């Protein structure tokens, strides 16, 4: 019966984002942790906003997302003990390989966005207040362009997850901002290609937080703590670092 399943062996619930889930990272690292500790990790992957909400409601033991400001607020509000920087990868700007805005090979993200706006080339925005979406908005601000005026024209706010947004970009031949992990594991690129990468402002940092038992006494502090400790340990770092797709590393553990 379903309830007996959930009692079978110790487990924790990890609230995380679709980008980490879709990249396949968890499938790579979690079995190692389970083998080492005997603790099963159940991943609920949703948007960053929803993940934080779940954790606030006490429906997760550990939170692993990528929007530093929100994470810090979560800790400040007393829902988490401490935010640990865990790993990073980077965002890239992808677009149709015929490159209508002429930004291919560039390393300056804001400049590229300005060019896209100038060319009125299609751009797909996540539009879902996710970590990626927030980063994109920051980049537009740096670029000094307000794309929301063009919403519905060349600027398409889709309001969907990373994979769905990529599917849309592929479907209409649009640019979009995407984290490298999702991109590398994404299999419906059609004629999309990486146009801009390597800008330091495109760094994408993930943090991990153990949910505080002060607010939610039922939180599995022991098992959750073990998981966070393992992630930050050498074994955990090694596991993150050697997750590769076609020879490329997707995430780099923080020192």
């Amino acid at each position, binding site marked *: 019966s379903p309830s007996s399943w959930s009692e079978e062996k110790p487990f924790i619930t990890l609230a995380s984002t679709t980008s980490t889930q879709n990249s396949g990272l968890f499938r790579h690292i979690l079995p190692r942790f389970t083998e080492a500790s005997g603790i099963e990790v159940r991943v609920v992957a949703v948007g960053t*906003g*929803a993940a934080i909400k779940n954790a606030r409601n006490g429906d997760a033991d550990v939170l692993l997302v990528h929007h530093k400001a929100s994470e810090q607020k979560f800790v400040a509000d007393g829902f988490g003990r401490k935010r640990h920087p865990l790993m990073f990868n980077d965002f890239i700007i992808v677009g149709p390989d015929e490159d209508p805005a002429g930004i291919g090979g560039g390393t300056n993200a804001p400049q590229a966005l300005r060019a896209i706006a100038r060319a009125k080339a299609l751009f797909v925005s996540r539009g*879902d207040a*996710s970590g990626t979406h927030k980063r994109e908005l920051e980049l537009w601000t740096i670029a000094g362009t307000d794309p929301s005026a063009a919403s519905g024209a060349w600027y398409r706010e889709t309001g969907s997850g990373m994979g769905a947004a990529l599917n849309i970009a592929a*479907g*209409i031949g649009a640019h979009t901002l995407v984290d490298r992990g999702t991109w590398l594991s994404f299999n419906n690129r*059609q004629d999309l290609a990486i146009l801009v990468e390597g800008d330091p402002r495109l760094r994408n940092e993930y943090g991990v937080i153990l949910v505080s038992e002060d607010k939610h006494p039922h939180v599995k502090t022991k098992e959750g703590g073990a998981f966070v400790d393992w992630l930050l340990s050498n074994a955990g770092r090694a596991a993150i670092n050697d997750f590769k797709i076609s020879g490329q590393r997707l995430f780099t553990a923080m020192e």
Partner: protein
Amino acid sequence: MDTFLDALSAAFALIFAGDADLLQILSLSLQVSLSAVAIAVLIGMPLGGLIAIRRFPGRQVLIVVFNALMGLPPVVVGLGVYLLLSRSGPFGVFGLLYTPTAMIIAQVILVVPIIVSLTRQTLDALWREYSETLNSLAASPAQSLVAVLWDARFSLITAVLAGLGRAIAEVGAVMIVGGNIDSVTRVMTTAIALEASKGELALALGLGIILLLVSVCLNLFGHGMTRLVTNEATQ
């Protein structure tokens, strides 16, 4: 529990503010779903009726298949339509992807099996009663079809409402083929999904309450029409 109260007040706030975005999203929802159901009725009712009143080889198979197609997952339909309408797909040239038209197409595919199966089953009973008489009167299949559809019109309303329920509540297919693009293809259900993914649960629920109220109004309207006509009509 707080969230439920928040949801209610969010719903009321939105309704009383007469929020322009909300109105636009709501009207697109209705436009897409009502069009889809109308088209599905035009396709599905004659088809379901024919299956009910004709006996032909493969009829049983068709019944099973349409029953099974009631369980067509919206995401699968969405993907299928996406592939067909995508730029690299066979109908890519029409540029229909991420338009309301694409959403209507997807919903038609989802609703037709419901209309076909429920129409068939509703007319089955009537046909058992009518068939000898209509045969005796030498009604052609088409004439028989029109007669049973007409005489069962009030019972068929439930089939239409079931189809409408599926269409208006559906998110998986419209999300994929519509893209939930702000002020272009955002409908109530995709807006709800978006707010949910942002963690704005109260707002999402509030939108859900509004959608339900609209459903109730639509149903009341349909029901009122029925009452009105039934009283005059012949049982």
